[in-house]
Structures are given as C-alpha cells and as structure tokens.
C-alpha cells in the first residue's frame, strides 16, 4: 500500500484515500472538430504505459478531493515526486538517465524474472526507430 504525499494537504496519506486516474499531462486536442479520427483515438485510448518512470494523475478522493500528479517508478513502485496540477515534473526519465550516466549507477529493475535482464537498450531502440 502506497504512502502518498498530497501536495495540497502537505502530508503523507494512505493509498486508500486516493484513486489513480491514468496518465498525467494528457492534452485534449485544442480543436477537436478539426483533428483526425486517428488523433482523437490517440487522445482517448493510447497511453505511454512505461516500465519505469511514469507521470500519473491521482485524485485525493477521500481527502481534499484535489487532482495532482505523481511521478512513480512502475516496476519498484517508488514515488519520486508529487506535484500540483499545472506544475511540471522536476524528475523525468530523462533527468534520471542523465543522473545515472553521471553516477554510473543503474536503477533496479524490480519485477524482472531474470537476473541481469534490462528493460530497454537505448541505442538499439534509437536504431529501431530510425
């Protein structure tokens, strides 16, 4: 059970008081009438779903009823940051990767079945996308 710091109540509360509401920072197309079916479908249904750093929207349902954002690692469930609506995260997969490169530390990949397996190899993926 998560222990979540509500940025509005300014204290930690039990997960039972909250509900997750999916990926954060989703952008509703500004002009829905003029976006394609593809774009509209993407907005409605397609999600990042990363194994790793995830920015997600939660609501403090049984509490202040405010929506806010959580940056959480989806494999080890560590919460790295919570921040209010309208704010941007200070920790992202990119900032963490930069930190890692500096310190030479590899973050734990909880949840993998095979010791030593790594989720994604950046170089290979870049090639794959190219």
């Amino acid at each position, binding site marked *: 059970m998560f222990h979540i710091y509500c940025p*509005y*109540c*300014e*204290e930690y*509360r*039990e997960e*039972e*008081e909250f509900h997750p509401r999916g990926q954060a920072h989703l952008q509703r197309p500004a002009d829905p009438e003029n976006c394609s079916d593809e774009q509209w479908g993407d907005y409605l249904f397609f999600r990042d779903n990363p194994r790793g750093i995830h920015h997600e929207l939660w609501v403090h349902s*049984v*509490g*202040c*009823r*405010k929506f806010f954002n959580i940056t959480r690692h989806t494999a080890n469930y560590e919460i790295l940051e919570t921040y209010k609506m309208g704010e941007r995260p200070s920790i992202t997969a990119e900032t963490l990767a930069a930190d890692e490169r500096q310190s030479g530390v590899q973050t734990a990949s909880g949840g993998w079945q095979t010791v030593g397996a790594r989720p994604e190899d950046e170089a290979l993926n870049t090639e794959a996308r190219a």
Partner: protein
Amino acid sequence: MSEIREFDCRPNDQTGAESPLAWSLQRGPVPDADTQAGVTLRESAFMGHLILRGGAIVLDEAVREVLGINLPARPNTLTLDSTGERSIQWLSPDEWLIVVPGGEEFALEKALRHALGQAHFSLVNVSGGQTVITLSGPKARETLKKSTPYDVHPSAFPVGKGVTTIFAKTSVTLRQPKADCWELIVRRSFADYLYRWLLDAAAEFGVSVER
C-alpha cells in the same frame, strides 16, 4: 446578489425534525449508560453546516469580520471561536467547513455573502446532509485506530487538527476540537452505518450512547 439564490431551508418550528442518527437510535441497539464505558458516543444534531469555497486571500478578511475567527490557512487545521461552538475547518486549498449552532447558518450565509460582495466564491448550506458524532472516553483513540488509517497519536493528531479521511468503509471529517473530544462529521446517509460500526468496534471497551 441576484446571481446566487439564497434560501433559508430551516423552519422556525422544529417539530418532527429528525437528525441523521434518529433512525439508528430508534431502531437500536442503544447500549445502556455505563459508567465503566471506555467510549462515549453522542450526536451533536441539528448544527448549521456550511461549505465555503474560494481563494483564501479572497475569503480571509470577510470570515474574520463576520465570524470573528481566522480562516485556517494551514492544511488540516481548524479554528474555533472563544466559546468553542463555532468552527471553521480547512478541507482543501479552496474549501472550508463552517459549523455553527443550528439556526445561525442562514444569517451567517447572508452576512458572509454581503461581506464578500462580488468576489468569486461559493457558499452552500449542507446542514441537512451531515451530522457531528462525538467520541470521548479513555478508549476513544483506540476505537479510532480500529477504524481509520489516519494516525491519531497525539504527536500526529494534536488538538486543533481536522482531516477528511477513510473511516471504516466510508469517509468522515475527523477532528479534535479539544482534548479527549473527537468529532466525526459524517454524511447523513452513512450515519447509521457509522453508528453500528462504532458500537461494534468499541464493544470490547464498553460503550455508552448519550442522547
């Protein structure tokens, strides 16, 4: 103030009024008064409850002017007037609960609207929708520990604190206006459930219900 419709929903004649706990007390069980009881439970019925929403900066002065108490700006706190009968509690950054003796709520609503003028805020009478259940006694805290995941240890929950949290399978606004006095503000429709929960949870300590 024609843009908002004020309405005094409280009759002068209180005959036949039924508080949210009326049905529970009528149906029972109502434990006998017990001097050995570890927990005492009482409904502070028919209070005036108002939900005030708006920006703290907008509301602060008007509240002080009308109610004579400060709008609590810090999360999860509550302020009381000198008699302890009137209180304002922080519910969220733009939402407060005002509880006053029954019958004062409409006058207060008008006075606040007047003081706030054209500011953007909302003020809603919810007096019929919730009630205050008071828990006291040496085992009150222990009973709360059975019911809510919120930390009620004195170091985490001093007098003057109030939070909205999970309570059994419902939510309450839980507060400690003075030492050994816990107030649970619960929605009307859940009051009977909460009552039965409390009787059950406190049974091992002995519980008595004050009417």
